[in-house]
């Protein structure tokens, strides 16, 4: 008897849909075991993680606040990844978006600038992110530089640029030298949706982005082009699609979305530009993009789910004294199972009696 991974003749659509669910189920089982080892009741722990945050308007809104940047960035990244373009530097584009947009908030701070400030900030944020993404894109199409490395390295450059600005020229004169800008004026702030709670108009913007991406990928030539270039570059060349231009396009769109997410985050929940505006959103969004199967609606669900694990993890820290590290373990396990289950889309597991018959399989 032998366990063999056998290549499927074609992708299994059924498994493609089932795989993330299977991954989540396996994660829950593993987590239950971990909770039990820690001496916590697994049922209570899973309730605190996954159900309790959904039973309260405050935590529901906080999930939306947390998911907003993740979904926006992940949508942009999914376009890149579908086209076989590997933008790993969304974190940097997020930061540069925040920086470029914040420029207006800083210079108009304390003046009686009109309501044009916020829209202009959002535009500048998107432009900043897109321009930052253009650097690795141009390096790739012009010089053949590996965009994985260049986009990743530019994250640290962006971080240091922001660092310099908030420690130097943009520092709040009344902030006791703390590295932060002055609090943004109301005209430079993304308004909250309701009287109470922190959910803001950015959450709606994220939903609009999801809708637009769905339409673009499903109903436009551009969406078709992205898929063809990603799946079959040679066929795309015969069809007359210009893959270099597509690199620029996908980088620009994903950079703009990351930049927009950055300025919305800074002008929304944060209210100032300061180091630490992103707890790794640009990187977590990569997980979200793949967890959502590079599909806009899938990404929306994945983003909300990941946000749920953050908020639920915090609740577990408070009510059950479950350490924060377990939330991180949890996210790691989830990604592990997602990738593991994905292999079932292309391969099937078979039990084979004698090794000789397995000559076609990949053991």
């Amino acid at each position, binding site marked *: 008897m032998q366990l063999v991974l056998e290549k499927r003749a074609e992708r299994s659509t059924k498994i493609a849909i089932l795989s993330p669910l299977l991954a989540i189920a396996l994660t829950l089982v593993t987590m239950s075991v971990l909770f039990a080892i820690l001496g916590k009741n697994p049922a209570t722990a899973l309730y605190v993680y996954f159900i309790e945050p959904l039973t309260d308007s405050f935590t529901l809104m906080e999930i939306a606040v947390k998911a907003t940047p993740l979904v926006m960035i992940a949508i942009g990244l999914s376009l890149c990844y579908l086209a076989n373009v590997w933008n790993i530097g969304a974190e940097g584009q997020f930061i540069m978006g925040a920086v470029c947009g914040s420029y207006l908030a800083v210079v108009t701070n304390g003046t009686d600038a009109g309501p044009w400030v916020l829209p202009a900030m959002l535009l500048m944020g998107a432009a900043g992110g897109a321009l930052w993404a253009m650097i690795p894109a141009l390096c790739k199409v012009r010089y053949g530089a590996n965009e994985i490395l260049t986009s990743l390295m530019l994250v640290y450059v962006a971080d240091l640029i922001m660092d310099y600005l908030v420690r130097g020229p943009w520092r709040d004169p009344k902030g006791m*030298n703390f590295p932060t800008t002055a609090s943004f004026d109301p005209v430079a702030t993304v308004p909250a949706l309701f009287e109470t709670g922190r959910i803001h108009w950015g959450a709606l913007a994220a939903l609009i982005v999801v809708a637009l991406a769905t339409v673009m990928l499903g109903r436009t030539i551009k969406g078709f082009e992205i898929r063809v270039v990603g799946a079959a570059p040679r066929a795309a060349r015969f069809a007359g699609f210009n893959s270099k231009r597509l690199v620029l396009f996908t980088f620009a769109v994903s950079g703009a979305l990351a930049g927009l997410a950055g300025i919305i985050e800074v002008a929304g929940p944060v209210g100032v530009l300061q180091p630490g505006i992103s707890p790794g959103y640009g990187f977590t969004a990569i997980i979200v993009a793949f967890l959502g199967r590079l599909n806009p609606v899938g990404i929306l669900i994945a983003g909300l789910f990941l946000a749920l694990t953050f908020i639920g993890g915090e609740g577990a820290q*408070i009510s059950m004294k479950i*350490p924060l590290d377990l939330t991180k373990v949890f996210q790691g396990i989830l990604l592990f199972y997602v990738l593991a289950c994905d292999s079932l889309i292309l391969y099937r597991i078979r039990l084979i009696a004698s090794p000789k018959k397995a000559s076609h399989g990949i053991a």
Partner: protein
Amino acid sequence: MKKLMMTAAAAALAIVATGFSANAAEKLKIGFIYLGPVGDLGWTYMHEVGRQALVKELGDKIETTYLENVSEGPDSERSIEQLARTGHQLIFTTSFGYMDPTLKVAKKYPKIKFEHATGFKRAPNMGTYSGKFYEGRYIQGVIAGKMSKKGVLGYIASFPIPEVISGINATILGAQTVNPDIKLKVIWVNTWFDPGKEADAAKALADQGADVIMQHTDSPAAMQVAAQRGIFAFGQDSDMIKFGPKTQLTSIVNNWGPYYIRAAKAALDGSWKAGDTWDGLKEKMVLMAPYTNMPDDVKALAQKTEAAIVAGTLHPFKCPVLGQDGKAVECKGGANLDPGQILGMNFYVKGVDDKIPGK
């Protein structure tokens, strides 16, 4: 059908959950927000030690919760509010960067008591507390001035906020009392906790000739580098002697426990008021770890200095304090700089070989 089953499952779980939280209802719930991991052996660790002291003292009347690794960005407001919403009546937020988020949540929950460490914004239900760490720095300066053979001290600094700058100034003022020509080199690492960066900074300072290393960052990494190089170092926040048994001269120990106990008792008997607490060696919020790895005369000098600060006969910022340009700084406190000048310190004293970043 599936939906029905899920609802039933959720309801069953809900029953389990309520059963779990019911028995702890009458105790005063106290929450802590920590910047780093509880195992950083520095700033957060010492707040955790303070929390444990509180539990030990009042464990039958209180229940505590902490959230660790809470970044000072948008997450902190939610974390603080989560504590406020889950029945915590007294909440300690233990880093400067939580100031505005704490204030926001405090305004929203006027009945809950908030205590913010090291900040300057207050509200009727939000007090502040901090230690006069510069007193310990001054003693370290005296020791370092005596112990440095090359006359060069290395200082790993985090952020150019007044607390850090007053620490640098107190150090060199102390060192100048025993060696007027002492030099102090500063490296800004722009982080409170990053063992890699802290170690790199310690190496760079040692390469520049510093033979006593001190830090305003939280990990013991610099101590370990100093031990490898065979030079001296001071611990930070906690006694770090086990990371450098032959290296550590002393360490400033942040002793929050007594304050947490005081505040919790006040909250329990209803006498709590939002205050502005700033305690030092005298009140034992700041302690010095044992003086080690130094000759007896240096040890005696250090003890004498400590005793004089406790007795109030010695003030690290005794006027005249000379600025970097050699001119005396305006002295608003009579004999010494006044508390506001120390808490808002934004200038170097004479002898610091550095420029305040961004100034």
